[in-house]
């Protein structure tokens, strides 16, 4: 693992006197490799290495009896800091309903996560209305309705329209009628480069002004995570991130890539297919997972 590799490198460096940027190069190269293996985006890795370089040649490493372990400690700390604090709250508005819109690529876990979030909101006394705004995927509406029924949470299907913008508009009246304090909108999966579908999201946003837009991303996403997140953020602006399928063995470097390129907080993680498999995001846990 990384600690062992770094210890070997520092053993060799012992005889060379003062540690500096030059002879620490091998150590930094091992950190770079570990992060790339974990799917952190290449440019994000480069920025990260620049950040830790300063600390890596500092007193804390040089005067340490175990410099390799010290570098790992620094990497862990910087990763945790970059991943951001634990902020798993949806900012609830003073005048309900709080409107939350779920967006992301195809298959990332939006529909399942919409139900999980609604379940959590229900438990917090914020009676949610689930809105089935995916009119494209075969049986997407059925999927959300089955999940809503399982949770005894109302699901709104548009009341006759199959235009996603109108469905969302009408959901406001429905929420008010049902006394819902929150609305969770499940949207269709879409490519960040699909002009038409990105415009649809912009239209929904301008019509109903959601208070929170959550970007749902698969924990196993590779280098492309940065392109996708950046584009979604540029087009509609995201307020928070959900990382799904964290119950697998993906290192999850996409977390750092997405957080770094959008500057937005990772709020929740999905840790399974069941609706109670939904947790707050803890940066320190994800940091050590990325390091492997």
């Amino acid at each position, binding site marked *: 693992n990384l600690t062992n590799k770094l210890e070997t490198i520092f053993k060799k460096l012992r005889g060379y006197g003062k540690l500096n940027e030059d002879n620490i190069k091998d150590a930094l190269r091992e950190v770079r490799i570990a992060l790339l293996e974990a799917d952190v985006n290449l440019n994000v890795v480069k920025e990260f290495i620049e950040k830790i370089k300063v600390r890596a040649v500092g007193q804390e490493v040089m005067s340490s009896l175990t410099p390799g372990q010290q570098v790992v400690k620094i990497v862990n700390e910087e990763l945790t800091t970059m991943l951001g604090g634990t902020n798993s709250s949806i900012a609830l508005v003073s005048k309900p309903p709080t409107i939350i819109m779920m967006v992301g690529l*195809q298959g990332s*876990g939006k529909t399942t996560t919409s139900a999980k979030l609604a379940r959590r909101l229900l438990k917090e006394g914020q009676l949610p209305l689930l809105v089935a705004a995916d009119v494209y995927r075969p049986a*997407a509406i059925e999927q959300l309705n089955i999940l809503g029924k399982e949770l005894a949470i109302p699901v709104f299907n548009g009341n006759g329209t199959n235009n996603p913008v109108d469905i969302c508009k009408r959901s406001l009246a429905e929420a008010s009628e049902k006394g819902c304090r929150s609305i969770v909108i499940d949207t269709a999966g879409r490519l960040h480069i699909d002009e038409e579908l990105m415009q649809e999201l912009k239209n929904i946003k301008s019509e109903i002004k959601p208070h929170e837009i959550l970007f749902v991303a*698969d924990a196993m996403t590779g*280098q492309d995570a940065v392109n996708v997140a950046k584009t979604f953020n540029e087009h509609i602006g995201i307020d928070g991130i959900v990382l799904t*399928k964290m*119950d697998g*063995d993906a290192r999850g470097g996409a977390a750092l890539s997405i957080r770094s390129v959008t500057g937005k907080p990772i709020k929740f993680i999905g840790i399974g297919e069941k609706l109670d498999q939904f947790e707050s995001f803890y940066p320190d846990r994800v940091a050590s997972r990325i390091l492997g």
Partner: protein
Amino acid sequence: IIGRGKIDEDFFEGLEELLITADVGVHSASRIISGLREDVKKNKLKEPKDVEQYLKSEILKIIKSLQPSAFSLQPKSNPFVIMVIGVNGSGKTTTIGKLASRYMKEGKKVLLAAGDTFRAAAIEQLEIWGKRSGCTVIKHQSGADPSAVIYDAVQSAKAREYDILIADTAGRLHTKVNLMEEMKKIKRIMGRELQGAPHEILMVLDATTGQNAVSQARLFNEAVGITGIALTKLDGTAKGGVVINIIDELKIPVKLIGVGEGVDDLREFEPEAFVEALFD
């Protein structure tokens, strides 16, 4: 990279970074580029664009290290049984819909098995694809034993002389032992009811997946043996470079690619086009 004009360390680094950002993986990329450095010296290549061409041909060599026939999906017996597996959300059900439609257009008699009895509306989703392609779907109620659905489907395929049976299965993470056991059982039932079945075990892989794809392929392969990969969502900006490693180390070919959500958005894997796209 090519506009630089000089074949120096920066140039090689640029090529290595291109491969890394295409999800080829840091170790594979480094191996490929050190091999390239040797070859450039040996063959005295002078032009950056010649070096790029050489790199493309080296990657193509890796891909083509498998037999050309390995890359095609040829129904060779009756009924020809295709089992579709893969992690959650990769595109299994959609790929089956596309494949079914293609075979129907070729005049084949296709039967579908709704083997995902777990996820909400999975059966309904496959039924809609069945309607679109004009195929019958064998299904039980939600929550039924998937092996029972598969058993019925195989009996039906034999009795009613279908040419092709495609079985959908629930998405599953390769790290879930009980789900991997369930998948092995489905395969066993198929083989027990029809000798040689399943004739094709297709793992569906999302092109946006990073290095975890290698772990997926390895474990699914160890569990049931993968005969081919369907690489989906290549219509996005992800390059799917991780398959180079899968082809090289696990000797598993990519047979199909998904390039959209429509019924016709399915293509045969073409090594040359794939390598060209890596460098776009």
